[in-house]
């Protein structure tokens, strides 16, 4: 087994026999053209010729194809899975690009030019010169309400989104509030209803008028879509039931933040719990910057 200096390593030699960043040039051009269309029609899902990647569908093949098509030798790549840089999916994707493209890797959000993410948006606000690539399992927000692709295409074409509002209304009728807590549907630039990928709805407000370009890739479903910088992204709601995010009544047990999205960690078999930032880089930066340790707040 080759020992890889993944995570921080300077460029190493690419794997012999493969093109830079794995995909062949014709595939990259096809994906690049798709990305340009996606940027020109914000929130619209553009079909593309998704390729087989050397890992299973559901592990981020859509995001990886976008990253492979945009990344260059002078980029710095960060990969997160549920906010963390050190989880299986993030580590294997980072290793993949380290092997096939040899691009510089970082765990620091501020140092990255391209960030590929599974199910979180970093807590640190992103900049104008960064690109956020989302891994998307189900790009069609209407799919669970209307199984036929021919119908959902028409619904998007006609802006016929009543069925989505009925679904949200039924939540309110049954439970008194909208219970969707992740992959919460959004309206992009006042036109297309879009699935933000399964990010917690806590992250939805960060998408609105974000300075960074946001690209979404769904490998199995063969769709790419985008939100250009500074584009209005509105979470669907009703006047009398406005969109709101759930604040957890805890602060991070490691860095003390009460702003960030927290993971719950079971620490023993006697009901012990520790709440920590899901964004590992944000948490570490705060601790390194000497923010107050506040373990007591985690109970």
């Amino acid at each position, binding site marked *: 087994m080759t020992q890889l200096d993944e995570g921080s390593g300077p460029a190493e030699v690419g794997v012999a026999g493969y*093109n*830079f960043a794995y995909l062949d*040039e*014709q595939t*990259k*051009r*096809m994906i*690049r*053209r*798709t*990305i*340009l*269309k*996606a*940027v*020109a*029609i*914000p929130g*619209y899902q*553009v*079909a593309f010729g998704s390729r087989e990647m050397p890992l299973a569908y559901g592990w981020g093949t859509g995001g990886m194809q976008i990253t492979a*098509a*945009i*990344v*260059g*030798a002078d980029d710095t790549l960060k990969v997160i899975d549920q906010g963390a840089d050190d989880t299986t999916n993030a580590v294997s994707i980072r290793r993949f690009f380290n092997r096939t493209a040899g691009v510089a890797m970082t765990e620091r959000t501020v140092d990255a030019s391209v960030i590929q993410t599974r199910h979180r948006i970093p807590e640190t606000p992103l900049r104008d010169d960064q690109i956020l690539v989302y891994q998307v399992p189900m790009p069609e927000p209407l799919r669970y309400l209307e199984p036929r692709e021919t119908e959902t*295409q*028409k619904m*998007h*074409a*006609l802006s016929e989104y009543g069925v989505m509002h009925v679904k949200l209304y039924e939540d309110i009728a049954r439970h008194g509030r909208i219970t969707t807590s992740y992959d919460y549907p959004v309206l992009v*630039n006042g*036109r*297309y209803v879009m699935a933000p990928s399964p990010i917690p709805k806590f992250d939805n407000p960060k998408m609105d008028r974000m*300075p960074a*370009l946001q690209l979404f890739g769904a490998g199995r479903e063969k769709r790419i879509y*985008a*939100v*250009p*910088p*500074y*584009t209005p992204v509105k979470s669907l709601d009703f006047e009398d039931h406005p969109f709101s995010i759930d604040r957890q009544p805890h602060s991070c047990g490691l860095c003390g933040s009460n702003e960030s999205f927290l993971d719950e960690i079971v620490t023993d078999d006697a009901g012990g719990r520790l709440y920590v930032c899901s964004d590992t880089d944000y948490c570490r930066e705060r601790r390194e910057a000497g923010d107050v340790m506040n373990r007591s707040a985690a109970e």
Partner: protein
Amino acid sequence: MSQIALKAGFDDSVHDSQRVFRALLDAMSRPGRIVTPSPPPELPAALHPATAAVCLALLDFETPLWLAGPDIAETRAWLAFHAGCPFVATPEQAAFALVTDVAALPALGDFALGSDEMPERSTTLLLQVGRLVAGQGQRLSGPGIDGTAWLDVDGVTASFWTERAAACALFPRGLDVIFTAGPALAALPRTTQVED
């Protein structure tokens, strides 16, 4: 048999096309921003450096191209060799349209504008103009722009802007335009609102 001395393409097609694409992506995501993609070392006389760069980065056998302008035989041969793109006879068949001189531009309604269900099946127009200046000229707003931006496109007529507005009023159908002037490039996706 006429012979045309073929000019070279990118030195390093993998990394050169990636850099050109990223410059173009930057321009398309931020309408009004002018970028300067690095061109190939040699290019046909009728092409501006930025045009040649975009053609090599985006065109291949999957992109029917409609080519218009004076003295384009050399360009055609160069693109046929380096990109291998098919050439089509009418603008509406084209995935990309390359117009090397504004005088050769047909009515914008002649291009494919996509359908409501598949708006991406529209022509992307590559138009060579005289000069691009940011910060003055037309007032731009829409996705990708923080408030407003300004872009001065030297060489296009007033009817271009009226026709573009008419095409883009059909959103999600519409026309995405890439302007090139010498080494500079700017893009106007269909979402950008343009005012005088």
